[in-house]
C-alpha cells in the first residue's frame, strides 16, 4: 500500500491511473475476502468465535490508538478509559433502564468523543509525556470510579445486554454479534486506510514531526489534534459498546494495564501502519489461548516477548516486513534514480518564468509590481516591537519595520542581532512584550501563526522543518492545505470520492510543478531524510510558493546551497517579485541579497540602524563598521 501511494504521487497523473485502478480492485477483493471470512467466523463454534471477536474488538482499540499515536505522536494511555465509558454506558443503561442497546450506539459515540475533547483540550496544549500522563490518570480515575460506585456494581461488575437475533430471513448468516463486530473492525480499517491515502496524512505527520511547519502552512494544529483524539476516543467507545455484548463488564477489564497492552499491540504490530495494530491485537489477545502453559510462566513469557519486540524490532512486524521487501526491490530501480539528482540542481530546473502553468501564476490577480500607487502600500508593519527571551536581556528594543507591497525587503545584521526573532514575531510564533504588528492593514497581534498563514503570509525556517519520512512532494502538499476546501471532512473517504480523486491529482500536479520550479524536480519521489540540505531548503521554498501567498518571509534561504543553486534561487525570487509577491529575506550572503532588494533594514543588537536602498546601506559608515566588517 505504501508503494502504491508513492507511485501515484508522480508528476503526471495519467500513467498513475492504471495503478490506482488496480489498487482499487485489489481493495474490493480484499473486502470481499474479509466478508467471506466473517461468514465463517459467524458460523463457527463459540470458543473460536469469542477468541476472534475479542481480538477484533481490541483491533478496533489498537486502530483507534494508532490514529493518535502513529499519525500525531500522541501516546494516549486513555484508550481503556474510553473503552470503559462505552462498555459501562451500554451495560448500565441496558440493565437498569432497559434501553435498546442500538439507541445507545450514538450516545456512546457522542459521550466518548466529548470525553476525548475534554481530555484533549486540557492536556494537548503540550504534547509528549504530559499527554501520556494525563490520559493515564484519566484511566486510573475511571477504574477507581468503576470499582467504588454503586451503579457499576463494584469489582463484581454487571452483565451486559444480549445481542438481538437476526430476523428469520437472515438466520443463515450465523451469529449477529459476530457480523457487527467484524464489520465494525472493517470500517475502522477503512477509516484508517482512507486517512492514510488522503492528503490529510502528510498534514497529520507534519503536526507530529514539524509542528511549526504545519502552523506556518495555515494548519490549526491544536484543533486537529483534539479532533483526531475525539475520533479516536469515539472509536474506543464503540469498541466498548461491542464489548458489552460479550458478557460481564467489570473494572479489571479496563485498568491502565489494558491501555498499555493496547500500546503493546500497535508497537508489536507496527506503529503508523494500517494492518499492524490488528496484527498486534491478534498476537496479544490470542497469546494466552495459544500458549497453554503454567499461567505465571505464560505471563513471564508475554512480558519478555513484549520487551524483546520493542527493543529488537522497534518498527514492529509490519515495519520489519516492509524493510525485508524493500531490500529485495531496492537494488535495481533505485540506482537509476539515484545517479540523476547529483548534478547541480539549478542546471536541470525550469525557472518559474518559463513555466507559467505552474505555481505562482494560476489565477492570482495580484498587484503589478512597480506600478505607481500600489507600490506605496505598506503590507507588513511592525511598530515599537520589544522582545526578550525569559529573564535575559532584550533581543529587540523598539523595532519599527515597514514593508511595502511588491518589495523585496532584506533584513541583515550580525548574529544575535534579532533578525530571526523579528521574523518569528511577524509570523506569529513569538508574542512581543510590547508593540504591534499589522499584516495587510489588519492588526495581527492576536492571530496565531496559522491564522497569519491564512491571511496570505508564509515563511520558511532557518533550519528546515520537514517530515523526514515523507517524500519532498508530500511535504509540499502540506503547503497546499489551505487551498483544498473540506479536506478534513472528506479525508476518511478520500479515495472513494470522485472529488477526492480529482483534487488528489490536482494536488499532486501542483506539488510536482512547484518542486520543478524550485529546482528540486529530480527529487520528487525521494524521502526528505535522503536528500541533501540544499534540497530541503528548496522543498521548503516550494511548499511556500505552492500556496501562492502574498507575503513570504525567507529565513536564510541560501544557506547550504551551492553557487549555481544560489543563482537559481535569485532567479526564482525575481520571478516571484515580478508576480507581485512581497518578500522579507533574512540573509548573510549580501552579494546574493543586495541586488534583489528594494529596501534593506540593518539590525544590530536589537535595534534598527538603518532602512534604505542597497547602495545607501553599502555606503553607510555605521553599517560597514557593525556588519560588513570594516
Amino acid at each position: 500500500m505504501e508503494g502504491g501511494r508513492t507511485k501515484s504521487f508522480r508528476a503526471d497523473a495519467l500513467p498513475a491511473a492504471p495503478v490506482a485502478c488496480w489498487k482499487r480492485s485489489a481493495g474490493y477483493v480484499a473486502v470481499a475476502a474479509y466478508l467471506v471470512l466473517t461468514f465463517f467466523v459467524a458460523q463457527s463454534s463459540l470458543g473460536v468465535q469469542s477468541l476472534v471477536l475479542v481480538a477484533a474488538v481490541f483491533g478496533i482499540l489498537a486502530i483507534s490508538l494508532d490514529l493518535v499515536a502513529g499519525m500525531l505522536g500522541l501516546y494516549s494511555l486513555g484508550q481503556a478509559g474510553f473503552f470503559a465509558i462505552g462498555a459501562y454506558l451500554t451495560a448500565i443503561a441496558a440493565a437498569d433502564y432497559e434501553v435498546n442497546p442500538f439507541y445507545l450506539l450514538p450516545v456512546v459515540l457522542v459521550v466518548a468523543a466529548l470525553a476525548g475533547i475534554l481530555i484533549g483540550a486540557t492536556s494537548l496544549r503540550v504534547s509528549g509525556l504530559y499527554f501520556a500522563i494525563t490520559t493515564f490518570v484519566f484511566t486510573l480515575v475511571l477504574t477507581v470510579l468503576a470499582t467504588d460506585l454503586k451503579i457499576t456494581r463494584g469489582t463484581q461488575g454487571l452483565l451486559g445486554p444480549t445481542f438481538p437475533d437476526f430476523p428469520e430471513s437472515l438466520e443463515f448468516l450465523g451469529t449477529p454479534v459476530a457480523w457487527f463486530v467484524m464489520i465494525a473492525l472493517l470500517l475502522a480499517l477503512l477509516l484508517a486506510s482512507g486517512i492514510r491515502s488522503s492528503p490529510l496524512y502528510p498534514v497529520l505527520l507534519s503536526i507530529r514531526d514539524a509542528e511549526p511547519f504545519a502552523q506556518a502552512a495555515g494548519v490549526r494544529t491544536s484543533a486537529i489534534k483534539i479532533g483526531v483524539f475525539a475520533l479516536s476516543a469515539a472509536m474506543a467507545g464503540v469498541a466498548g459498546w461491542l464489548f458489552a455484548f460479550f458478557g460481564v463488564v467489570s473494572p479489571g477489564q479496563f485498568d491502565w494495564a489494558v491501555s498499555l497492552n493496547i500500546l503493546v499491540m500497535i508497537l508489536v504490530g507496527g506503529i503508523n501502519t494500517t494492518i499492524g495494530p490488528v496484527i498486534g491485537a491478534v498476537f496479544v489477545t490470542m497469546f494466552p489461548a495459544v500458549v497453554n502453559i503454567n499461567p505465571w510462566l505464560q505471563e513471564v513469557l508475554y512480558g519478555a516477548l513484549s520487551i524483546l519486540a520493542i527493543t529488537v524490532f522497534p518498527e514492529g512486524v509490519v515495519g520489519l516486513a516492509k524493510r525485508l521487501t524493500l531490500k529485495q526491490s531496492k537494488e535495481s530501480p533505485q540506482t537509476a534514480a539515484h545517479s540523476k539528482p547529483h548534478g547541480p540542481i539549478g542546471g536541470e530546473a525550469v525557472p518559474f518564468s518559463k513555466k507559467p502553468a505552474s505555481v505562482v501564476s494560476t489565477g492570482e490577480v495580484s498587484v503589478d509590481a512597480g506600478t505607481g500607487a500600489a507600490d506605496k502600500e505598506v503590507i507588513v508593519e511592525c511598530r515599537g516591537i520589544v522582545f526578550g527571551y525569559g529573564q535575559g536581556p532584550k533581543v529587540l528594543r523598539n523595532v519599527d519595520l515597514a514593508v511595502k507591497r511588491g518589495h523585496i525587503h532584506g533584513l541583515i545584521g550580525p548574529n544575535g542581532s534579532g533578525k530571526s526573532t523579528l521574523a518569528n514575531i511577524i509570523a506569529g510564533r513569538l508574542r512581543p512584550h510590547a508593540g504591534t504588528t499589522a499584516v495587510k492593514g489588519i492588526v495581527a497581534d492576536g492571530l496565531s501563526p496559522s491564522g497569519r498563514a491564512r491571511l496570505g503570509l508564509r515563511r520558511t525556517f532557518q533550519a528546515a522543518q520537514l517530515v523526514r519520512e515523507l517524500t519532498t512532494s508530500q511535504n509540499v502538499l502540506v503547503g497546499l492545505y489551505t487551498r483544498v476546501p473540506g479536506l478534513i471532512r472528506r479525508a476518511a473517504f478520500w479515495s472513494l470520492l470522485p472529488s477526492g480523486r480529482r483534487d488528489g491529482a490536482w494536488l499532486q500536479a501542483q506539488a510536482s510543478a512547484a518542486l520543478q520550479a524550485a529546482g528540486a524536480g529530480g527529487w520528487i519521489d525521494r524521502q526528505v531524510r535522503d536528500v541533501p540540505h540544499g534540497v530541503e531548503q528548496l522543498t521548503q521554498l516550494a511548499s511556500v510558493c505552492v500556496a501562492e501567498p502574498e507575503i513570504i518571509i525567507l529565513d536564510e534561504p541560501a544557506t547550504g546551497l551551492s553557487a549555481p543553486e544560489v543563482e537559481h534561487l535569485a532567479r526564482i525570487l525575481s520571478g516571484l517579485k515580478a508576480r507581485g509577491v512581497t518578500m522579507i529575506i533574512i540573509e548573510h550572503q549580501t552579494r546574493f541579497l543586495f541586488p534583489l532588494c528594494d529596501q534593506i533594514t540593518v539590525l544590530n543588537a536589537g535595534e534598527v540602524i538603518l532602512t534604505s536602498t542597497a547602495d545607501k546601506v553599502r555606503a553607510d559608515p555605521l553599517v560597514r563598521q557593525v556588519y560588513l566588517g570594516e
Partner: protein
Amino acid sequence: MLQIVLSGLAIGAVYGLVGMALAISFYVTRVINFAQGQLMMVAIMIVAAITAAGYSAWLGVIAGLICACLVAILSYVIAVRPILAFDRFSFGWLVSTLGFAVVVENIAAYIWGPTSRAFPPILHHISIHIGSAVLTGQQLLAIAVAVLLTVAFELVRKHTLFGKLGMAIASDPEMASAIGANTAVVAIAAFAVSGLFAGIAGVLIGPSTFANPYLGNTFGTYGFIAMMIGGGTEKPVAAMLGGLLLGVLAEGANALIDSQASDWFPFLVLVVVLIFTPKGLFSSGNPLLRLRPVPMAQR
C-alpha cells in the same frame, strides 16, 4: 487528630520513598519505570524468604535491598537502555518497563505462590506513646528513615560531583556526554539508588502488608501519585513531600469520610492538583512541558 497525622506521615513516608525512587530514575533518564512497585516487592519477598529459611531478619533486609538494587539495574539494562539508544524521545519504555514488571511479578508468583507469606516484624511489635497517639516502632522508623534519606539524597545531589553530573545529564544528556560524562554509568547508578529506595520502602511497610507478589502495583501507583502531586518530576525531593501529604490526606479521608475512602480519595487529590498546578505542588518548573528540545530555528 495527632494520631491521624502521625500514622499518615508513616504511610506517607513509604509512598514518598517509592515516589522518590520513581523520580530519581526519571530525573536522569526521563523514563517512568513502571516496574518500580515490583522492585519494592522483590525486597519484601527476599526478606520474607530468608527469614522463613531461619536466618536473621537483618540479614534478610540486607539481602533484600541488594536484590532490589540488582533488579533495578537489570530493568535499566534490559528495558530502558536499548529503547533510549534507538531513539531518546521514543515512548517504547512505556511498554518495556511494564513488560519487565510483568516478568518480575510473575516470576515471584511462580516461585513463592500467589498467597501472602509472613514477614518479620522488625520494630512492628514495639508501641510508642506520643501525646494521645500510639505508633509502632516501625511507623516511627519509617518517618525517621524517610527524613534521613531525603536529606542525604539532597546533599549528594547538590554537593558532590556525582550529584551534579546527574543534574547535568538530567538537563541535557548530549551536552553532558560531550563534556565527558559517562551517561550510562550515571543512569545505572540512578536506577540502583531508585531500587534501594524502593527496597527500603518495602522493608518499612512489609510488617503490615506481609509478603505478597502482587503488592507491587498498588504501591507503584501510590508512588506515582506521590510523585505527580509533589512535583517530583523536577525535584525528586518534592516526591517525598507529595508522599507525606498523600499519606496524611488518605488517613484523614479514612477517618473522616468512610473507612474505604482511601481507595479513591488520593485519585481525587491527584486530579485536582493536576488541574490547578500541573507542575505539582512543590516544584518550581515542570520538565514534562519541555521534554522535546526546542529546535534552534524556533528561537
